[in-house]
């Protein structure tokens, strides 16, 4: 057996990483709870149930393969999130003249 074979056999025993999202009660959104390892989606859901809802933490679970998540570039955080800064006219608090007027 050549060394490459060995690498490939041992790597097949490693279960991929999944990210777990839990809805704590009806009406709320799913929130990231943590991660786990599982061979496939069906087992990931079950492992998530066993691991992340042992204390009634949830009524619904999502699992997502960790490598399927696309994330914004952390190095570009300055420019990526700059635009909304200083645009206070998007917020109700910007409009002060109507203060005191009822139901507005």
């Amino acid at each position, binding site marked *: 057996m050549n060394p490459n074979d060995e690498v490939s056999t041992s790597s097949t025993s490693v279960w991929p990483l999944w990210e777990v999202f839990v809805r704590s009660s009806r009406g709320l959104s799913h*929130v990231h*709870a943590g991660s786990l*390892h599982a061979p496939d989606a069906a087992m990931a859901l079950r492992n998530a149930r066993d691991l992340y809802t042992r204390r009634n*933490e949830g009524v619904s679970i999502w699992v997502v393969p960790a490598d399927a998540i696309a994330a914004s570039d952390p190095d570009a955080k300055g420019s990526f999130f700059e635009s909304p800064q200083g645009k206070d006219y998007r917020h109700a608090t910007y409009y002060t003249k109507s203060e005191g007027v009822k139901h507005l």
Partner: protein
Amino acid sequence: MTPEQTETTGHGDISVGVAGSGDSSASATRITPGNALRPEDIALEVRTGLVKPSEDVAEYALRLGDDALILAQRLGHWISRAPELEEDVALGNIALDQLGHARSFLTYAGGAWEKSEDELAYFRREHEFRSAHLFEQPNGDFAVTIARQFVVSYYQFELYRRLTQSTDATLAAIAAKAVKEVDYHRDHSAQWILRLAQGTEESRQKMIHGLKLVWPYVAELFADDELATRLAEAGAAVEPSSLKADFDRLTGEVLAEAELEVPQTPAAPGGGRRGKHSEHLGYILAEMQVLAREHPGASW
């Protein structure tokens, strides 16, 4: 959304300490004890004389309680030894479910003889236990444990499903809680049967071997006797033989999907319901009871 209550452990506030991040992490970690029938509730009803099982019902509850207790004892061994950490947690949950059922049934049974769950669990001798041989079978490797879980969970599901209609309100209530948990145990074992049977050649051979090892003890689960028949006629219990058709059909479907055959192994005679046990039970009880028996009458 209710603002999360700050939890303290006597060591101070457990919080992330980052403004605004509390709520988002909170909703995925909000923990509650839930609201379900607990062994303690049954103990209270028994103690206050609210419920008292007939001699027959107590004997019957003892059987179900012993099955679950011995299985929990077996499964507990896996915690810290499972094939992967996730499975430590999964098998731990199943063991805890079974232990919960055992405590409820034993507490209720003890009501007939003024004995607590612990007096029944720790101070009966081997021949006084009523568990079937299947539950006593050793864990073996993971495939053997899964094979045992597969048979147990499909049997218990059919049993508890029907027991929810029992004329005995306490049996019905325990079964109503248990059937939902056992339904998940079915799913757990079926998932693993599929994976082990169709994973690698090695796992397939182990799965086939595991099923072969446990199958001789299937027949005992469905054997009727006077007590079960008498209680079934009164509507309090279920005749074991009446569960067989559904058990065969549903386990057969899973085995067919896994491309496995129903093992054709000769049935062992059993005898657990009459106190005739396998060689294994003695060891299980020796370990389980040793400490409690060293300190008779002590409270823990």
